[in-house]
């Protein structure tokens, strides 16, 4: 299989990457590639330019900041999974990242990539939303924080502008109790539905075009999940009801 034609760029610094993003039309950032490369292989994505950020040194940090943990753009999911710092400050993120695909995928996949890709059924966007974290977007225009509540705008759509690079995600410390519970057909598959609990906050995933915050006492309110071969809307609602109970039983 062969991805569609694209022009390949491998900037050595964040500034170079931002300059490329500002000057090129129809460019896509390549980090871990575990979502983007399948889309290229299937030719569902046909960007004119691919900006591979993997050659940028010093962009794979995981560090403590403002009472939470910051995960830089090239920190692999496996590194976050193994990080003692993440386990200490944000054990909810440690638990969630283990549910993302399989270890071999996590060896390449990045936390920031999952957030930028914004698949409605993926775990990490819902974790960021439940915790009230933010991402840091950089461009030649400067740097800005985008709060989780304004980040996810639609199926695989975010508030990150075409000329911006997501350089870091910030997850607040997860206070007790927390839980992430999901139902999938096979271990490592995308969830049919899932819930994230961070103290008294609840975020749902797999049941709307974006992850959504919900009222723990009435999690189904206003929810209209879509149906597909794997699950009917009614089944997804039932899953949300049961998974929320499980998350709040802990």
């Amino acid at each position: 299989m062969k991805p569609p034609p694209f022009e390949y760029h491998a900037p050595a610094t964040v500034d170079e990457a931002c300059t490329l993003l500002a000057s090129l039309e129809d460019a896509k950032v390549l980090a871990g590639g575990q979502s983007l490369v399948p889309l290229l292989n299937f030719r569902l994505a046909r960007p004119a330019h691919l900006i591979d950020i993997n050659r940028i040194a010093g962009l794979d940090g995981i560090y403590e900041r403002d009472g939470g943990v910051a995960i830089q753009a090239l920190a692999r999911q496996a590194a976050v999974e193994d990080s003692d710092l993440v386990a200490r400050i944000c054990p909810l993120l440690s638990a969630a990242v283990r549910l993302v695909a399989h270890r071999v995928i996590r060896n390449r996949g990045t936390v920031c990539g999952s957030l930028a890709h914004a698949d409605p059924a993926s775990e990490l966007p819902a974790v960021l939303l439940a915790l009230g974290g933010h991402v840091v977007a950089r461009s030649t225009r400067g740097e800005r924080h985008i709060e989780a509540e304004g980040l996810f705008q639609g199926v695989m759509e975010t508030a990150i502008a075409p000329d911006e690079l997501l350089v870091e995600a910030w997850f607040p410390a997860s206070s007790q109790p927390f839980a992430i519970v999901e139902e999938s057909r096979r271990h490592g598959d995308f969830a049919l539905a899932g819930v994230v609990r961070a103290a008294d906050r609840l975020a749902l995933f797999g049941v709307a075009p974006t992850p959504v915050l919900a009222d723990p006492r009435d999690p189904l309110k206003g929810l209209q999940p879509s149906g597909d071969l794997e699950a009917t809307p009614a089944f997804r609602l039932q899953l949300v009801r049961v998974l929320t109970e499980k998350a709040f039983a802990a």
Partner: protein
Amino acid sequence: MRVNGVVHAAPSDTRRLLSDHLRHDLGLTGTHVGCEHGVCGCCTVLLDGAPVRSCLMLAVQAEGHEVTTIEGLAADGAPLHPVQQAFHECHGLQCGFCTPGFVMSVVGLLAQHPNPTAEQVDEGISGNLCRCTGYASIRRAVVRAAELSKK
């Protein structure tokens, strides 16, 4: 990039997948290609010692890195790698199509967990599909591989 210890130039075609580069340009056909979107695990190779999907990487991305394929685990005529030996002893393969991917994933698993629990074994091979459904013997092979690796 170095592949099984030998230095090779990266392909000039930037859209060449690493899996296709290994098979078509370098003739290393032990790396199998199944689904080509990261689900089946057949194309798993080691990148700087950690298992990754070679179908989800561009070959140019491996420039400056060390790639190990199934051919790199044991030289022709040399004793098998402990993981290969364990798959052989425990009948951890039937048709063999998924085997190179399983073996490379298990090499990575045992590097991370030299004494894997039953749960870690299942988690470690959960990203590889076997259409002959020989999972019971593959599980046994992983446990045996852990024993053989200590000798």
